[in-house]
């Protein structure tokens, strides 16, 4: 009886570890769009290239009217964005946190993010 309890406990422990590993290892795609976008009545215009950092990943430059993608693992991430003017970083350095559920990704609209509006990203389950 005691032996069976220990065995079942071990199996349960392994399953819990597996679920934990699934959660922290699950990769998500974050798309960064540097394009003109209209949300409600407001139009946000993309003008400059933006440099984007996600966690410890290598930064990427998202040029005007283009899209870049980051593949990241885990549920919570830190995004840092700064504009690039004439090859130099300029303007405010904006830092945001983003959280995902399993099988979720996101599209970050950089013009909206730089403008400081609330709806700077949309969760997408099909990406």
């Amino acid at each position, binding site marked *: 009886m005691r032996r069976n309890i220990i065995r079942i406990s071990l199996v349960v422990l392994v399953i819990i570890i597996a679920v934990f*590993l699934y959660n922290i*290892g699950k990769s998500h795609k974050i798309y960064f769009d540097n394009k003109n976008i209209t949300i409600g009545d407001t139009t946000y215009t993309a003008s400059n290239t933006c440099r984007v950092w996600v966690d410890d990943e290598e930064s990427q430059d998202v040029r005007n009217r283009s899209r870049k993608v980051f593949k990241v693992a885990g549920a919570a991430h830190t995004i840092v964005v700064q504009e690039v003017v004439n090859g130099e970083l300029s303007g405010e350095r904006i830092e945001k946190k983003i959280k995902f559920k399993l099988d979720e990704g996101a599209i970050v609209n950089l013009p909206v993010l730089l403008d400081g509006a609330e709806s700077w990203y949309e969760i997408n389950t099909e990406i």
Partner: protein
Amino acid sequence: MKTQDLTKTTHPVIRFLINNAVPILFIVLVAFAIPLSGFSGEYLFREMVTRVSRNSFLVLSLLIPVIAGMGMNFGIVLGAMAGEIGLIFITDWEIVGMPGLLLAMIISTPIAALLGYFAGKILNKAKGREMATGLMLGFFMNGVYQLVVLYSMGKIIPIGNNNILLPRGFGIRNAINLEGVRQVLDNLLSFDIFGIGIPIANFIAIGLLCLFIVWFRRTKLGQDMRTVGQSMEVARASGIDVEKTRLISIVISTILACYGQIIFLQNIGTMNTYNSHEQVGTFAIAALLIGGASVARATIPNVFVGVILFHMVFVVSPRAGKELIGQAQLGEHFRVFVSYGIIAISLALYAWRKQMEKQNLRRQAQAINREALKIQQGSTIGGKES
């Protein structure tokens, strides 16, 4: 443990040379091939570090069945298949990094244990012919694996990632890109020595397995396995459950082989879905035998000597062949010939040794009989005279 001595000579040098004929032969071969190949020492050292860290775990998984007297476990192919199934799932679910690698190990452990259990059951029914049976089991399970991966995955077993599915909607593609887990263990802890990256985490894993084997040999189960390996009749008479002990050794070996294959493939970074496991058994066994092991005796040093020598031949022989004859293909043929040839030689040597032992035993028994007969006749004549 059975002795490896092939000779009755008392001269220690001759005994050493004869008992270590295979590794010595390969050292001589490598010593000739290295200058011919023209590879630098730095290149060879880098290659050896990579290959030892990549292959040693798999080769170490062969040791436990040898302790139990089951010879070289060709059934490690089953463990390799289980490991690949784990990798297919984590690639489908897009689990990356170390969590992905560990999850692949967790997923494949029960599959490997189950396959090891079935293999052990079958091998228990084929006592004395374990290696040939294991080889056949590998071929048979390859068919089952192909059936599962080629037809069930995507149809019965849900696979959602189109990157690994065949365009028809079911079945896994021929090659899977393991970019999510590529070299994650190698890069987990690594530092450079003279510009050569040393994958410390890999070596820690290998070291832990070596410690496990050393510890395991001293446990009650390990001692039981040694007894079973020496004589099943004696073990049975001592109250050891021979069948169960043999079965456990195969299960452990298959699970370890499954981890070994995952470590191997994370280093390569690409999985050849239908072929990666095929020659795992042959190459691991060839490496162990080249290291001086035999079917009845294999040690941890045999593993490392064997992996280094076998892979040194692998690295230098194509180039040496090209420099010598102008055709790299010759070297390629040579290394395939070497891996199969060495298994054949070792098995032949083992069979010959067994036969010699039997003959010696028979001669000794006959001599004892003759002596007994003489004594009996002497006493009868003495009795009549008196």
